[in-house]
C-alpha cells in the first residue's frame, strides 16, 4: 500500500472501501485501497500529482447515496477513490446573467436551496435523486428536461476548471482569464462560455469520459430564473407519432421550458402510481411547462398555452390538466422535489435501464422494433416504461426504456437482448453504461476508439484516471 498524499483527509477503513467496491448494478470485486476527500481544487491537483508519481489509479466520485452504472467502481487493483462530495460550495451566483459557479459536491438535493436567494434554480434531468452531483450529471451528458435551452450537448456548462489526468490545471471556456477566480468575478467576468479558448474545448472532451480523463474542480453552470408564473399541462394521445409531432412543434416554436414524452408506465412511475394503475393513463403523454420569468409573465404563458392548443389540435392530441388524479402542475413540483430514492425503484425495488440517442423523425420506428421484440420475449408480461427527451432543441432524442422489477429477478439476458435489438434498429449509445457499455462500440468504424485513445494520450498520459473503463482508453 502506498503512502497517501499528506494534508488531505483519507479513509482506509474496510467498511468505507468496501462500499466503493460495488454499486447497485455492479458486483465489483476490486476494493479500492483508500478514499481521499479533497476540499478544494488545489487538493485535487495534489492528489493527481501524487497519483502520477506513484502510478496510483484514481476513481473520482462526486455523488452520495446509491451509486449505479459502474463508472465509480474501480476496474483495477490498488485504486484510490477521490470523493469530491464534500466540495459543496456555491462559489458565485448571478441573477442578471443567470449563471452560478459550483463545486462538484453540490447535488440536486441542495442546489435549488443554494440558488433560491439569487432568484435562480438549476436545470435538472428527470427526477434526479437528491444525492446526485449536479456537475457529475452534466458531465455524463445526462439529459435535462429543458429542451428549449439545451442548444448543444455541452449545456448547461459555462467555463470550468479541470485538473487533467496529467496533473495540469486547465481553465476552460471564458474562465480562461488571468487572476484568481475571486479577482475574475470582481472584475465582472461570469464564465458564460464553455468552448475554447483558442481551439480546444476540454469541457466537452471531459463530458462522457466517465472519470477517465480528469477531474472537474468547479464549473459555471447556466441556471433558470425562478419563474413568476409557471403552468404545466399534459398533451395526450393513444398514438406515439401524435405526441412526438406535437412535442416537436412545441419545441421548435420554443414555447415550453420543460418538454418530454412518456408512455403510461413511465408516467405512472413519475406520478407515484403503481404499474397496474398505468392502464388508466393515456398510452402516450407529452408533458409541457410554460414559464414567465420577468416580463408580463401571465401574458407570456397565455400566448404560449394558446400556441400549444393550436399544435395539439393540429395533431389531434388532447390537452389534460390532470391525469391519474394528479395535476400537471403537481407533477412539475414533484419533478423538482429532491428525494433520496430513484423513482424507478419505488414500486418493485429494482429496475433495468436502456438509453440511447435517436433522431426524432424515426422515434416511432425504433420504439415499434423494441415493442415487437418485447412482446415475443420472456419480458412480454413485464412493464417497460418509455421516456423520450428532446435534446439540442429537438434536433435529436434521448430515448430511455425502464423496466421496474423485483430485486431478485433475473432479467439480465433478456434485457441485453433488448439492447442488441435496439442497436440493430439504430440506437446510438452515446453514453456507454450498463449492458450497452460494450455494445456502444460494436458499430464503431474504429473512429471512436482512436479518438478516445488520442484524448487519453493527451489528457492522461500515465493512464491513472479510472483505468479500463473504456476498452480503447490506454494511452499510446
Amino acid at each position, binding site marked *: 500500500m502506498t503512502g497517501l498524499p499528506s494534508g488531505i483527509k483519507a479513509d482506509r477503513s474496510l467498511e468505507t472501501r468496501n462500499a466503493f467496491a460495488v454499486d447497485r448494478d455492479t458486483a465489483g470485486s476490486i476494493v479500492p485501497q483508500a478514499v481521499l476527500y479533497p476540499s478544494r481544487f488545489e487538493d485535487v491537483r495534489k492528489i493527481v500529482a501524487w497519483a502520477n508519481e506513484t502510478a496510483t489509479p484514481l476513481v473520482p466520485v462526486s455523488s452520495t447515496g446509491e451509486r449505479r452504472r459502474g463508472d465509480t467502481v474501480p476496474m483495477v487493483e490498488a485504486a484510490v477513490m477521490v470523493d469530491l462530495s464534500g466540495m459543496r460550495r456555491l462559489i458565485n451566483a448571478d441573477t*442578471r*446573467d443567470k*449563471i452560478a459557479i459550483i463545486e462538484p459536491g453540490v447535488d440536486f438535493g441542495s442546489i435549488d436551496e443554494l440558488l433560491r436567494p439569487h432568484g435562480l434554480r438549476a436545470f435538472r434531468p428527470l427526477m434526479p435523486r437528491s444525492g446526485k452531483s449536479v456537475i457529475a450529471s452534466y458531465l455524463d*451528458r445526462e439529459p435535462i428536461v429543458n429542451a428549449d435551452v439545451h*442548444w*448543444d*450537448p455541452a449545456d448547461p456548462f459555462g467555463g470550468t476548471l479541470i485538473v487533467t489526468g496529467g496533473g495540469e*490545471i*486547465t*481553465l*476552460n471556456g*471564458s474562465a480562461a482569464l*488571468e487572476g484568481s477566480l475571486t479577482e475574475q468575478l470582481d472584475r*465582472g*467576468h*461570469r464564465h*458564460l*462560455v464553455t*468552448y*475554447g*479558448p*483558442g*481551439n*480546444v*474545448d476540454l469541457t*466537452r*472532451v*471531459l*463530458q*462522457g469520459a*466517465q472519470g*477517465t480523463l480528469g477531474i472537474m474542480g468547479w464549473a459555471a453552470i447556466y441556471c433558470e*430564473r425562478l419563474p413568476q408564473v409557471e403552468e404545466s399541462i399534459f398533451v395526450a394521445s393513444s398514438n406515439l407519432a401524435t405526441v412526438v409531432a406535437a412535442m416537436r412543434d412545441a419545441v421548435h416554436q*420554443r414555447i415550453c421550458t420543460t418538454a418530454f414524452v412518456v408512455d403510461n408506465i413511465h408516467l405512472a412511475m413519475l406520478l407515484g402510481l403503481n404499474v397496474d394503475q398505468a392502464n388508466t393513463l393515456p398510452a402516450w403523454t407529452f408533458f409541457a411547462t410554460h414559464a414567465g*420569468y*420577468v*416580463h408580463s*409573465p401571465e*401574458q407570456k404563458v397565455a*400566448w404560449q398555452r*394558446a400556441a400549444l392548443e393550436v399544435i395539439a389540435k393540429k395533431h389531434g392530441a388532447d390537452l389534460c390538466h390532470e391525469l391519474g388524479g394528479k395535476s400537471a402542475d403537481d407533477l412539475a413540483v414533484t419533478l423538482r422535489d429532491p428525494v433520496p430514492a430513484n423513482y424507478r425503484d419505488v414500486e418493485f425495488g429494482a429496475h433495468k435501464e436502456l438509453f440511447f440517442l435517436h*433522431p426524432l*423523425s424515426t422515434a416511432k420506428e425504433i420504439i415499434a422494433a423494441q415493442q415487437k421484440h418485447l412482446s415475443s420475449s420472456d419480458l412480454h408480461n413485464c412493464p417497460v416504461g418509455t421516456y423520450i427527451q428532446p435534446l439540442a*432543441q429537438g*434536433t435529436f432524442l434521448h430515448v430511455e426504456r425502464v423496466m421496474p422489477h423485483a430485486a431478485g429477478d433475473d432479467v439480465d439476458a433478456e434485457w441485453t437482448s433488448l439492447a442488441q435489438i435496439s442497436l440493430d434498429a439504430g440506437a*446510438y449509445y*452515446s*453514453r*456507454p453504461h450498463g449492458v450497452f457499455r460494450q455494445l456502444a462500440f460494436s*458499430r*464503431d*468504424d474504429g*473512429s*471512436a476508439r*482512436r*479518438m*478516445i485513445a*488520442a484524448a487519453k494520450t*493527451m489528457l492522461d498520459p500515465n493512464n491513472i484516471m479510472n483505468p479500463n473503463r*473504456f476498452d480503447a482508453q490506454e494511452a499510446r
Partner: protein
Amino acid sequence: MSAKTDKGRLTLDPEVRIELENILGARNITDDPALMSGYAWNTGVGKIASSDKFAALWPIAVALPATVEEVAAIVKCCKRHGLSFRPHSTGYGSMGCVTSPDSICIDLRRMKHLEILPEDRMAVIGPYATANQLQAEARKHGLTCHVVGAGPSHSPLASATSLIGVGITSQFTSANMRNMLAWEWVTPEGDIIRGGSAASGLGWYASDGPGPGTRGLLRGFFGAGGGLGVFTRIGIKLYPINQKGKMEVIGKVPQLRSKLPPHTALLHAIFPDYEAQRAATFDLLQDDVCTVLLRMPPDHIGWTLTRTNAEFVQRTKDKTLPEPAILDNGASWTILIASRSEAEHRWRSETVRAIVASHNGRFAEMTQEEEEVLYHNLATSQYVPRVLRASGGITTSFGVLDSFHFLPQAIEMGEKVLAKDTAPGGDLCEGSPDEQWIWPHEGRYMWAENIIHFDPTSEASRAAGARALLTHFADQWKRPLGTTGLLVGPIQDVTGPRIGKAPAFARKVKSYFDKDDRSKTKEYVIPNMPPVVEKVLPAFRPIFAFKPVQSVMAKILAKKGM
C-alpha cells in the same frame, strides 16, 4: 517536386502528378498558373494584405476531389512525397490560401452535398454547400441556418469545423461550433475518422460519444483553420423561423430589401448612453423577448442604408442620414421580433417597448424602405459586404466573449484604439472610431468585435490596421474584457497562462495527429514549439505591448501581409 518556376515557386513533380491523376482523373488536378492565381489572391479581406495583389506563396497545384476517399488519397500522396496541403472550401477572404511553398491546395468545390432533414431541424452538408444555398433550401421547410458575419457565400462546413462561426443572428441561431453535429474528417495522415453518431453509421445528428466528447480536441472557439486535415461532411443544426418558402427580394442591387413577414417587427432602439443600453440589454435577454439583437456602429448602418459611398458622404454633410446612422445614436440595438401569432407578437412588442422606455430609450424613425433593407441584411447576413464598401480593407479585433457587463468598456476600449488613426490626417479610413459590432449569443452572453477599416493600397494604412490589431491584444492583456475570442497562432503563446493551457493542448493535438506538420496553416498553433520557448514566450508580453515594438511589427505586417 524538384524544379522551380521562373518566379522561384516549386513545381509539381511529374511522378506526383501521375499519382494525383490516378486518384482524381486528369481534369481534376491543375498547376496551370492562370488557374492557380485564383488561389493566391491577396485582398486584405479579413486580413492585412501586402502591397502585392497576389500572395507571395502559390500552391504547387490545385486538386479537386469529389469524395472523402479521394481526399484521403490526396493527403496520403502528399505525405508520401513530403508535400504539405491546405483545405479550401469556398475561399471567402484569403483564409484558404496556402501558407508554405510546398503546399497543394485541396479545393473541395466538387463536394457540395446538401440534404435537409426538416423534422430533425438539421442538414447534412459537404464543404461546398454555401450558406446561401443551405438557407434557401432550409427556408422551403420553415427553417434557416446560422449565417456567419462573413455573409451568405461562405461554407457553413468550413465555418463549423474550422473557423470561428459567430454571426449577427447568434441570439437565435447560436454559433457554428455549437451548430455542428456529427462529422467526417480526413486526418493529416490521410485516415478517415467519423465522429458522434456518424462513426457508428447511424446518421449525422449526434456530435459526441460514444464516451468522451472528443470533438473538443479538434474544435474549440477558433477552429484549426486548415491545420488539422480536412473535414468532408457534417450534420448541422437548423433553426425554425416564422416564414416558410422563398424570401422575396425587392429593389435593385445594392439596395435589396425584403418585406417583413406577418407578426414581425424591426425596431431600432436608441439609448441615452452605454450604461443605459447595458441595463436594458439585461432586461431584453430575460424571457427570450427578442429574436435578434444587433448593435452596429452608426457609420456601418449608414453604409448599408445608402447606395454609394458618395451618397453616404453627401448625406453625412447634409445631415440627412436616418437616425440609426447618426453618430450620437451609437448606444443602440436593432431588434428583430419574429412571432407566430398576434398574441405572441403583442407580448413581444409591448415588452420590448416597455423595457426600452424604462431605460430612457426611444425608437428611431425609419422609412419602410429602410426597415426592409435592414431586415434583408439581417436575415441574410449582408453587413460585411456593405461595410467593406467604405475602404475595401477590413480586419477585425479581439472578439470579446463575456457578460454584457462589459458592453460600455468594450465600446470605450475600441474607440480608444482607433481614435487617432480614424481622425482626419490619421492612417486608417477616416470616420468615427466607433466600429464595434455587438450581439448576444443564445440569450446569454456578449460577442463584441471591433472592425478596423484601412486602405489596402496604402502601406501606411495597412500598418495602422496592424498596429490597431496589436494594440487590441495589448489592451486586453492590461484590462481584460473577457475571453479574447480571436486568439490564434503566435499571439496565443504570447498571451500564455492567461488563457490557461489552451495553446499547449492545441499543440499536443497538432503533434498527435500531424507530427510532420503536413496540414499547413498560420491560423492554428505554432507546431512543435520546444517547451522552454512555450514557457518563456509569455514573459515577452511587455515587449510585445511596447508601442515602438508594435509599430515595427505593424510595419513588417504591412509589407509582408498576414
